[in-house]
């Protein structure tokens, strides 16, 4: 497996577009995560100016709430690793190197496992980066540091890893079917931001929650805040095992389809 990952890393490390995407992701994530608290508090401050009650200032960054808050926000950027996967996969078709790798001696299973290992490594790295940001912000914003409160709710990082892995698997599937980078990115964005929301809206009751990207997104739901509690709204503050099962199920399904395509098709 490590050998297969190394093959993918040689391709990825030397491809500039992937580096740019990765850097933009790190920077954008940093800006959002470090800036969001001030941003929200400014809005609350402005909005609450004429209210009879003073709205409480929010702290998004204290342990252990920081993990839920940051992984939720990072979820909006999971399209970056997905586009990285699309580029890496469609490059193999446009350069015809997918053929060459089999000619050189990679089996079709290995061809698939190589990309899968890269997907997994990406998900781990993305979660690690959020983890590092969260750790720094938590340290700076928590008054009494205790090991217990630091690791409490850190399972949200694992959930984020699964979210990125599942979402990227969807991107991998699109790239494998479509084979062209621009087209694949287009299909992904169209599905994620237009088609699936419309379908979800049209479906009766809560069936929309079973659609692939929405159920992946449901892993980490919108965090509760003091503000919401004032209005009596309660969001899910934990990771539900049914959501995990759904995300894992979709991940398995996407990868199974990709594997079958690899096994059957002429390259």
């Amino acid at each position, binding site marked *: 497996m490590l050998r297969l990952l190394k*093959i993918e890393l040689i391709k990825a490390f030397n491809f500039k577009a992937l580096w740019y995407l990765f850097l933009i992701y790190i920077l954008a994530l940093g800006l959002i995560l470090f800036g969001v608290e001030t941003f929200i508090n400014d809005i609350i401050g402005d909005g609450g100016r004429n209210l009879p009650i003073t709205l409480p200032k929010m702290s998004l960054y204290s342990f252990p709430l920081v993990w839920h808050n940051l992984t939720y926000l990072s979820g909006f950027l999971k399209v970056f690793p997905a586009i990285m996967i699309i580029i890496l996969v469609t490059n193999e078709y446009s350069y015809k190197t997918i053929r060459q790798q089999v000619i050189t*001696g990679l089996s079709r299973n290995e061809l698939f496992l190589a990309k899968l290992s890269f997907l997994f490594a990406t998900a781990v790295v993305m979660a690690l980066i959020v983890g590092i940001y969260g750790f720094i912000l938590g340290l700076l914003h928590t008054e009494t540091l205790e090991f217990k409160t630091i690791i409490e709710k850190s399972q949200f990082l694992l959930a984020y890893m699964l979210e990125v892995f599942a979402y990227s698997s969807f991107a991998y599937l699109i790239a494998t079917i479509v084979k062209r980078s621009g087209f694949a990115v287009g299909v992904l964005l169209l599905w994620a931001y237009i088609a699936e929301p419309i379908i979800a809206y049209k479906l009766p009751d809560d069936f929309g929650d079973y659609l692939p990207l929405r159920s992946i997104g449901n892993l980490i739901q919108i965090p509760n805040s003091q503000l919401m509690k004032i209005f009596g709204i309660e969001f899910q503050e934990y990771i539900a095992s049914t959501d995990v099962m759904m995300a894992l199920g979709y991940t398995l399904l996407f990868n199974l389809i990709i594997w079958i395509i690899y096994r059957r098709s002429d390259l």
Partner: protein
Amino acid sequence: MEILKINQLTKHYGKLTAVDKLNVSIEKGSIYGILGPNGSGKTTTLGMILDITRPSSGSFTWFSNSDQNVNRQKIGAIIETPIFYPYLSAQKNLEIFCQIKRIEFADIERVLKIVELYDRRKDTFKTYSLGMKQRLAIAGALLGEPEVLIFDEPTNGLDPQGIAEIRNLIIKIAKQGITIILASHLLDEVQKVCSHVLILKKGKMLISGKVDDILREPDIFEVKVDKPEKLQELIANSEELSLVQEHKNLFVVQFKTDSNGVELNQFLFDNKLVASHLQKQEKSLESYFLNLIEHA
């Protein structure tokens, strides 16, 4: 020892049958040519034995066993055009090859020196000329000292100097006892390089065997005589001679059995014909091959 056994291998693309029930057996140490015009199924056949094209039916066995993963590491191959990551250097591209074949990076220096690209190893693939790309492809195929090398149209698109370089390289490699499978539409190439040949037409095997037996040069002569009508009549009734073509009283003739110019001259003399022109045709093998393909 049998290196490759192909059994009833078939590939359909919709209604088209690209390869039709092909049976081949290739022995260790031979240089096996697959000869045929464009579209005769050469690349499809190679694609199937390399696992990039799925056979519709039939089977093949490498090295008399079925352990694909081990087997593939003993095979080096170039199919059609050289394929590499354009943004990677030769060195990095070959590092990927090494990882795939589970061999040390140290072998890269050896193969790059064989194809004389060692000095350019740090340049990206996209900066290479076509000849250099083709040489890098050969270097890639040579990595890990494979037991079998497969070349598909290795001289396609190269200039005469490049063609000569690649051919000499193949002959040099063959001398080390490596089994070579070479697909080509160039008869001349197969004849110069190969020990065995298989001729394909529309996916079917026409003939196979040793190059010396199959592509034996039948002598073809150009003749001009004082009485062309008489010669035409003689050829029509002759058991030994056949007419390849006739143009403006220039007859191109071929002996059905082994023969040389002396016998032809004697034949004309016996029939009281005087030749004004009698020449052995140099390109005779090419026309023989075309003849074979057309009339099969």
